[in-house]
């Protein structure tokens, strides 16, 4: 009897020890997942989570086992390396950040746990495609890629300039497998390319497609070299951001009369990364305008500022969605002191001017005075004019005003003086209007004064003096000999 009891006891102890150790092992992945992934992807991996209504695009639902970003052929599950890559690098342009804090073992445990949400999918391991060495980019290869871009109908969704504004990308039923609306990628913004922005990343996306989306695999329909050519062309469309704190505006004889005047393209610009308006209700947690590009020119009498941004789907207010809108803000009083109005719509003591442009009335701009987000009034005298255009996914709005208006309380723009400005932009398609939009912090613009005469006079003069000095010294020394 004692023996039997002892055996039972031993078995129970051994079994529970084994059970505990086993669950302890898989609980590391679960613990980390619950701690650092579940807030978005849900404790059950179904993306029903704290952030699901506060993120665009939505966090991935793992229970379907469909993965957008893979290195495996369409229909195959992603490899562990694929999921690891996403955890490590994040998905640019989404709320998925790069998780660099975890050890390799911890990431391995997380990946293992993520796979448990769709165990059937991962029964057979996926086999990654081979990604060879990318060809060297050349004008000929880019031209070939451009031809293929049209031939393979990429242009229909991604648009001629690759800004994701193609006709076909905006059909009513353009949704992913999870039922959420989806938009074609904007190639010109590498900082927003979810699957990475290297030429290999683009090649991989073209080859295997993006699971659960209308972006299909082109593995069979395009030859390997064609996919590389296409990737090289798409890579060539990427623009790099030029960040800074101040934009210097150069003088010109006449400010171009059209928004698409080629003269604008050679004008120095600055990029403003945009945040959301999070301070006042209604707040914008999911702004889609991530970047606004600013440049300017001035003449003897006036100055012009061009504001430029990508918008995949323009809204002029006629389609039931709010009209796309942009404001440029200036402090009412431009002083040398550091103190400024609040960067979003000023405050009671420090009002800001808003130069308010709406796509619903594109030829017009309204000058307003804001003393806070809830206190805005049109100004009696309007001194600003505007020209605006939308072309191939890109908005351009050019504001123009006299350097000095003579209107009471209006700010004067003097060469050499730094004037603070900030931008607020609204994407109607994203339901943005009122005070719900993308905002920038304060930046400066300055009209660069003409080069002073002293720059042309003094350096040659000094050089000449030194030359003459050297010559006479040399002469007198030689004559002494």
């Amino acid at each position, binding site marked *: 009897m004692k023996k039997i009891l002892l055996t039972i006891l031993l078995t129970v102890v051994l079994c529970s020890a084994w059970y505990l150790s086993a669950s302890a092992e898989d609980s590391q992945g679960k613990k980390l997942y619950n701690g*650092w992934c579940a*807030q*978005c992807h849900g404790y059950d991996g179904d993306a029903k989570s*704290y*952030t699901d209504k*506060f993120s665009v695009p939505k966090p991935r639902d793992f229970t379907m086992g469909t993965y957008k970003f893979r290195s495996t052929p369409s229909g195959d599950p992603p490899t562990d390396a694929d999921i690891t890559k996403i955890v490590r690098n994040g998905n640019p*342009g989404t*709320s*998925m*950040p790069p998780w660099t*804090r975890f050890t390799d073992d911890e990431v391995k445990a997380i990946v293992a746990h993520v796979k448990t949400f769709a165990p059937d999918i991962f029964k057979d391991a996926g086999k990654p495609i081979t990604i060879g060495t990318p060809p060297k980019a050349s004008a000929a290869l880019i031209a070939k890629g451009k031809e293929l871009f049209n031939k393979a109908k990429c242009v229909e969704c991604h648009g001629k300039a690759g800004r994701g504004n193609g006709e076909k990308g905006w059909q009513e039923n353009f949704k992913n497998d999870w039922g959420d609306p989806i938009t074609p990628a904007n190639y010109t913004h590498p900082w927003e390319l979810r699957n990475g922005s290297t030429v290999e990343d683009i090649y991989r996306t073209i080859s295997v497609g993006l699971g659960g989306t209308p972006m299909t695999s082109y593995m069979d329909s395009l030859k390997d070299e064609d996919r590389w050519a296409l990737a090289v062309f798409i890579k060539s469309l990427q623009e790099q951001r030029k960040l800074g704190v*101040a934009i*210097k505006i150069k003088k010109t004889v006449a400010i171009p009369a059209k928004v698409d005047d080629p003269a604008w393209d050679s004008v120095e610009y600055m990029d403003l*990364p945009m*945040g*959301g308006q*999070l*301070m*006042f*209700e209604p*707040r914008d947690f999911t702004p889609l305008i991530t970047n606004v590009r600013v440049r300017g020119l001035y003449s003897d009498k006036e100055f012009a500022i061009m504001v430029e941004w990508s918008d995949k789907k323009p809204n002029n207010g006629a389609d039931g969605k709010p009209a796309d809108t942009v404001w440029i803000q200036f402090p009412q009083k431009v002083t*040398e002191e*550091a*103190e*400024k*109005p*609040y*960067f*979003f719509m000023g405050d009671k003591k*420090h009002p800001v001017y808003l130069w308010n442009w709406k796509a619903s009335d594109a030829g017009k701009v309204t000058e307003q005075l804001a003393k806070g987000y809830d206190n805005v009034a049109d100004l009696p005298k309007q001194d600003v004019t505007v020209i605006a255009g939308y072309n191939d996914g890109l908005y351009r709005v050019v504001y123009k005003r006299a350097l000095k208006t003579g209107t009471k309380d209006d700010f004067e723009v003097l060469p*050499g003086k*730094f004037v603070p400005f900030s931008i607020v932009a609204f994407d109607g398609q994203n339901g943005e209007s009122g005070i719900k939009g*993308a*905002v*920038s*912090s*304060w930046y*400066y613009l*300055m009209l*660069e*004064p003409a*080069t*002073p005469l*002293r*720059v042309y006079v*003094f*350096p040659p003069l*000094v*050089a*000449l003096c*030194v*030359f003459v000095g*050297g*010559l006479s*010294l*040399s002469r007198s*020394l*030689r004559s*002494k*000999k």
Partner: protein
Amino acid sequence: MMKIYPIIAAIGLLITVVSVLKKSPFFNFLGLLTLIYGLLKSVGLVTAPFPAQVMTMYMAMSVFSLFIYFSIQESTFEALLEPVRAVLADDNKLILRVLIVFIALPLFAGYLTFDKVKPNYEPPVSARIVHPEPVSSIEFRGKPITIIGLENPLRKDAANMAGNLEAGKKIYYQNCFYCHGDDLDGRGHLALGFNPVPPPFRGTDTIAQLPESFVFWRIAKGWRGLPAGSTPWNSAMPSFEDFLTEDEIWKVTLFIYEATGNKPRS
């Protein structure tokens, strides 16, 4: 880039040693100057580098002292000036004379002058106090709250700790993570749009240095509560009394300490 200065110092030392062996006071002079310049600049590797004005002053003093040193003996001074004289006057140094005296020196002087007279436009820079003095009391939705000495009431509630932490987590991910980051590292997906950039909570520089009452005050009042020295006009930190209750602010405070492994300063 800073690593080049010790190399410059080493080259200066080499020139000095060789010139002493070859008995050339002119190169000795140049070598010592290079050595001094390299050493002074190398200071930037270990501590704050000298400002440009101080550098100019030290270098001028060095040139002056070296001149005095080399002119004590007539013969040394003669030897020091000899290469200069040779380049200026010797028949066989014509090419060197043209290159140095008639081309390089005037160009260099012209460049220095250009550097001095060219207009330089820099936007105004404003200093910002990162940790302002906390206020002694605030009005929270009209209710007076004493900040000094205020403690998180939820810390004593051990029984509901897990639930409060989870509630704090939910509040964090619906109100804070856009800016302060998924990993509480200050790298939220909207962070780049703001200046000043949102501070991280992870690490020992921010909330670990602060009592919870300070954190409560910052969350409750946001940009509106900042003193002028902390540039409230630039801050995108909302006044969360508009969106959250007192209890919710304590919950999220609990969470940001717990999630980063930090303890509030007492």
